[in-house]
């Protein structure tokens, strides 16, 4: 009887445990990927990152395939010499939407949207600076005259940037139910870009712990061995 009660209590305690997890648990970097897909990718590419690499952010093989298939990438020229395109595959890089640098500049007042593969590493200030830039847009103060295609942004030394404010509250819906505020999206996408700039970081740390534990054990054993051998040395 007491066993039955105990089991009932146990079973009853399970649903709240699940209820605390959202239907689709996601990390900031996983939500950041959604921001990248729906916002950043309109102008930026990640030349060295493949669609398949997005598996690291929990994207399923099917989702990767269908995302890649929606993107057209250059595929040589046809018999008349006109450029051809084809659907991307998971093994293709996430290219910039602009076919070349000149078109990219033409579309952006002469400035080329930078490649995002390593931006969180090479930009002084790293991912935190990306977040700061995304949150530091402000109306141009009276008396300040900016060129066409420049936007007032206090995170930068010269107080302007060529990227129009990309984020607006509620512009996208996160599948995990997180509210897509500007603040939230900026945090998420900078976490995503940080992971993209430091590939395999989690795996690196995980394997590193095993390696260190193994070496520490070996150090202990060799230390004992060494002590015992030296103790018995001929005087």
């Amino acid at each position, binding site marked *: 009887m007491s066993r039955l009660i105990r089991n009932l209590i146990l079973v009853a305690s399970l649903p709240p445990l699940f209820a605390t997890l959202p239907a689709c648990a996601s990390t900031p970097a996983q939500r950041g990927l959604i921001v990248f897909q729906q916002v950043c990718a309109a102008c930026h590419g990640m*030349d*060295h*990152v*493949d669609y*398949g*690499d997005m598996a690291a952010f929990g994207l399923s093989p099917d989702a990767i395939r269908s995302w890649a298939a929606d993107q057209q990438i250059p595929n040589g020229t046809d018999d008349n010499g006109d450029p051809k395109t084809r659907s991307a595959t998971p093994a293709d890089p996430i290219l910039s939407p602009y076919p070349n640098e000149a078109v990219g500049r033409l579309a952006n007042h002469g400035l080329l949207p930078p490649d995002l*593969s*390593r931006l969180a*590493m*090479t930009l002084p200030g790293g991912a935190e600076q990306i977040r700061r830039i995304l949150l530091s847009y402000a109306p141009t103060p009276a008396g300040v005259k900016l060129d066409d295609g420049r936007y007032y942004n206090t995170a930068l030394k010269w107080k302007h940037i060529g990227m129009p404010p990309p984020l607006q509250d509620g512009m996208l819906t996160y599948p995990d139910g997180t509210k897509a505020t500007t603040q939230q999206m900026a945090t998420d996408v900078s976490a995503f870009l940080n992971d993209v*700039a*430091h*590939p*395999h970081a989690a795996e*690196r*740390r995980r*394997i*590193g*712990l095993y*390696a*260190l534990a193994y*070496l*520490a054990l*070996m*150090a202990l054993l*060799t*230390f004992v*061995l*060494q002590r015992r*051998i*030296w103790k018995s*040395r*001929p005087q």
Partner: protein
Amino acid sequence: MPAPEKTSGWLERRLPVMSVLRREYIAFPMPRNLNALWSFGAFLMVTMAIMIASGLFLAINYTPDITQAFASVEAIDRQIPSGWFLRSLHMGGVTMLFACLYIHIARSLWYGSYKAPRELLWLTGLGLMLMVMVTAFAGYVLPWGQMSYWGATVVLNAAHTIPLIGKPVSELLLGGETLGNTALHRLFVLHFTMAFAIVAVIALHVTALHVVKPNNPSGIDPVSPKQTLPFHPYYTSRDGFALCLFLMVYAGLVFFLPDLLTLADNYVQANPLVTPRDIRPEWYFAPFYAILRAVPSRLGGLLLAVGSLAVLFALPALDRSPTRSATRRPLVRLSLPLAFLSFILLGVAGMHPPTETWLIVSRLAMAWWFIHFLVVMPLVSEREITS
């Protein structure tokens, strides 16, 4: 030596591998009093082996072409299975190699391991250091990042200042006035050719060691077999323990701090039209870069940077005192640590922008480096009273 067994006897009469191994790596008499600094040779051997093994697999996946080199390195970091590990092992290995090399050399300086009869051991060791430097320089160009390109350009410009031959020879060797495809391809070949040449010189270095026997902290060679211990099991077990500690530091660098010593700028593809705000060398070249910058004349800077290494080669001739260990030489005990400090200060200065303060620090440190080797050592070795 025990009589060879039947099967091993056949090999023994033709190529005495087993008895040589027994003599040189088991029964080999070692001084009893070696301290932890004598383990750094073993660290260097192991690191070199790791460099060659990881380098081989990196070379398989690398494309020596200026349009593809950067992307092929990115692919190693991102898409090639375990590529990130191989590259990290190789990049961390350079740091471990140079750190051990500098400590190994500092130990030889402190305990006088360059003196008779170990001059050739010292010279082959310094030769190895130069070869490792050339290899590291060539290797750093390969990823074709901004620092690869501009760091190599600084070295190239320095080489161009050598009168008459500087420019024509470097153009001949690198296939053009500036760095291009030919240069990249040749540096790739140079990088791994040098790696194997280093293995050959290591063999010479170790052979020389086994002929003259290791020095020890007292600087007085053991005279009777009672003052020695066989290499195995005493020093194999001690080096084994030391290696575990060494590998823990190495693993810390590879797995937890991969960005600690790399320059983020090198993850931007080389662009000959955009000069980075400040061109910084990797830490192991920083002392020489500091000398290069501390001298107002470019040729003078090059000569002094080369000279800072040349004085090491000349050391067996400059220091004539028979006393080896600095612990028994009161003046050297003061002067040499200051020379070590100078080297470290030059390194720190080389990694900072050349402000007035850092230039003064560089010049003072450089001055002491030369004073120690060219003035203090010859004078002291003539008149010092050894304790």
